[in-house]
């Protein structure tokens, strides 16, 4: 069973002045345990797509299924964990209490909550900060708490909207490594929105490239991943990594029609970039 099935989804926002076609007949399937990155220029509907999967918004047309259930059912069944661009921690709760929040909302016992939260806080390397409040943490630490929170209920699907967007390059790379490790340990499927090509390539099994106005999927790039034993450093410097980065970049800059015409002429899509 696939983790996410988006079938012919269109999302139109009606504002007072005009209507925006944020998504136009988008279809996408994410297999169980698969890591899919969404990439594309600002405003191409990445967040919108993720919000539809999370049932934070409803599609104007088409259907979204999560683990075979309608998106709404999946949300009420807590089929996914979610992390946003802003950490979104509750300032009055400690790190531990923030991680416990989903469990508390769903009536887990205090002991079970505590045990799970301690485990997760440890997992994201914040063991010493469990009793701190969010305002006492750096942005990167807050983000790690948010990730821990999204993992609280062992979700089989993780939805992440630019979770590392606000971080510096070094923290970012470290968290990427942590995320990959967590993901290998939990075997969860991930839908990951990002603006960074290397980030998408480093993390994902498949990179979904989108274009704006109207929001569409222009290309899906398969990444040939090294075996799980390869360390992050050598992965980032491998030839395969650079080849994939180039492929995604070309898909991004080429756009749908241009890339096709370039391909039929047998020319490198690089030509499109220099237009």
């Amino acid at each position, binding site marked *: 069973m696939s983790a996410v099935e988006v079938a012919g989804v269109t999302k139109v926002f009606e504002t007072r002045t005009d209507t925006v076609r944020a998504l136009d007949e988008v279809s996408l399937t994410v297999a169980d345990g698969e890591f899919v990155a969404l990439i594309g220029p600002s405003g191409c509907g990445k967040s919108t797509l993720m*919000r539809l999967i*999370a*049932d*934070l918004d409803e599609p104007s047309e088409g259907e979204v299924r999560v683990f075979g259930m309608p998106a709404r059912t999946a*949300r*009420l*069944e*807590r089929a*996914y964990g*979610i992390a*946003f661009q*802003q950490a*979104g921690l*509750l*300032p*009055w709760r400690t790190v531990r209490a923030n991680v416990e*929040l*989903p469990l*508390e*909302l*769903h009536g887990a016992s205090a002991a079970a909550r505590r045990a799970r939260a301690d485990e997760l806080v440890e997992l994201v390397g914040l063991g010493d900060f469990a009793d701190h*409040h*969010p*305002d006492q943490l750096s942005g990167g630490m807050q983000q790690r708490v948010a990730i821990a929170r999204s993992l609280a209920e062992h979700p089989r699907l993780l939805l992440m909207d630019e979770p590392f967007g606000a971080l510096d390059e070094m923290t970012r790379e470290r968290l990427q490594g942590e995320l990959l490790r967590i993901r290998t340990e939990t075997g969860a499927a991930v839908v990951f929105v990002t603006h960074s090509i290397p980030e998408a390539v480093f993390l994902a099994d498949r990179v979904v490239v989108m274009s704006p106005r109207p929001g569409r999927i222009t290309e899906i790039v398969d990444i040939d991943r090294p075996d799980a034993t390869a360390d992050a450093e050598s992965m980032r410097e491998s030839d395969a990594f650079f080849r994939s980065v180039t492929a995604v970049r070309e898909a991004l800059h080429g756009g749908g029609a241009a890339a096709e015409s370039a391909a039929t002429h047998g020319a490198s899509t690089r030509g499109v970039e220099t237009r």
Partner: protein
Amino acid sequence: MRLSSRQTRAIGFGALGVLSLAVVWEGYKLLGPPEGISIGETVLLPRTTELAMPHVWDSVARAFQPASSASGELVIVAVAKAAASTLGIAGLGMLLGAVVGVLLALLMQRFLLADRAMLPWLILSQTVPLIALAPLVVAWGGKLQLGPFEWERWMSVAVIASYLAFFPVAIGTLRGLRSPEQAHLDLFRAQGAGWWKTLRYLRLPAAVPHLLAALRLGTATAIIGTVVAEVSTGARGGIGRLIVEYAQSGSSDPAKAWAPIAGAVVLGLVAAGAVALAGLMLHNYRRAEAR
């Protein structure tokens, strides 16, 4: 609970304020003309005679003498008793007003229609002058009789205080309940949390700073409302009554009249202190506030 340096400083500034008020008082009394300063018919600054402005120390000394030759009770004891009574009534009114205010805010947050329908009436309710309201409440209360229960004057006073206090609480709480950002609301929706859980775990905690600000405003209004209502309903035993009583003996005993006024000020400070204490206890909910 240890006080932070900021809080100690706040208390220091408070004491300094009281002190400088006394200094200004005595300074004006010393330098100002005995007949006061006026332009045409309008008096700008008061007379500085013993009758109008007794010395600060005279007023203080008077407070420690018997209130009247008939009763041996000291002025300060009489004032303290009256202040305690007023504080109790104001506290009751505040409690009532806070409960009503929070309930109204919940209703307005939950149902947009309630918001649209009620808000204009709430605003209108606060434009009714207290002086007009007091006799009405007393009259209505007088008609109320449930078995052995009988409506008393002080209950009218409490009702008036709550009528004044509920408004800032309702408005402040409503703002607080609406303060969570969209990201937090999304998070709760993603957890499948319904209205009640979102209220309990997100909206109410987020409303605490707004509620405290509203309570600061509400207690001040409740105290003033109680004192004024005591005067205008003729309720006995409170500090409002005492202010009137002692002012009547003003011509023969000017220093005495200031004691209940100071008592009312202290009352306000005590009430503000109580809210500040509540704020200290709830400090975890105020982390988002600028510090």
